[in-house]
């Protein structure tokens, strides 16, 4: 599980071009949107594509992302339970 969380932090930084943020800056429970990492709506769409591409999870309703992308911890729990690859 901690490997998955580490992997997610690395992917978030790389795919969302968070140039000035390192893995150590993201705590497992930090909010990804709003006051946390300050991600925006395009970032949310990128994360939805990442779930599909890397973990075989296709969200039928983009609004589901709001709950799933709450933090790295919540994302990791969701991926662990639903991943198909």
């Amino acid at each position, binding site marked *: 599980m901690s490997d998955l969380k580490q992997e997610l932090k690395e992917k978030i930084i790389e795919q969302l071009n*968070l140039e000035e943020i390192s893995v150590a800056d993201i705590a497992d429970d930090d909010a990804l949107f709003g006051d946390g990492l300050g991600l925006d709506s395009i970032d949310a769409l990128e994360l939805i*594509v990442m779930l599909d591409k890397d973990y075989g999870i296709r969200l039928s309703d983009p609004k589901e992302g709001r709950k799933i992308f709450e933090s790295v911890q919540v994302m990791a729990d969701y991926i662990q339970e639903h991943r198909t690859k």
Partner: protein
Amino acid sequence: MSLNQNYRIKSFCHLKNQSLTVNGQSVFDDASEDFQTFIKNAYKFLKTDYPKFFKMDSLSKLAFLAADVLLKRENLNEEENNIALIFSNRASSLDTDRKHQAAIENEEEYFPSPAVFVYTLPNICLGEISIKHRLYSENSFFIFDHFNAEHLHLYANSLLRNEKAEKVLCGWVDLDENGYEAFLYLVENEGEIEHNIKQINRIYTLS
């Protein structure tokens, strides 16, 4: 409104060939031949401090940094600024269009990136500049075969004479696999250089 009023070019900059010049004077040089490395080094040198810069595509990074160099010398209002943008280039958004095309070519691996797709129009760079500097005024992006001083001159004069803007930031921002080039100049009531086609072409070919 005065049809005979003459406007001036207050400042201009070039960002090309791994160097940045402002008003013909060298400001930054870098040995990096790769555009991404060069533009990142220029961003750091200019102490730009705008994290969203790293999410932009290459054309927007080029246009944003060139505009930022000139606009941050203007003591802009924090709420709103009446500065129009008239940009142009040859390659449109082709660099990003190609990246998007590559992402949708293979039906088995069909994962287009939303962050890439949103930059598949050249005028998106005008939005990035407008957001940073709070510009709510007119903006246009034209595609030409070559730098077209006549068109930029005519359009800028029209906006200023009709009081559609207090200042106009004009120029050429082109980027494709063969290279990159930004040339921007600010037109307003004051400045050392007369705003006419001959002078625009002269400063375009400097450096």
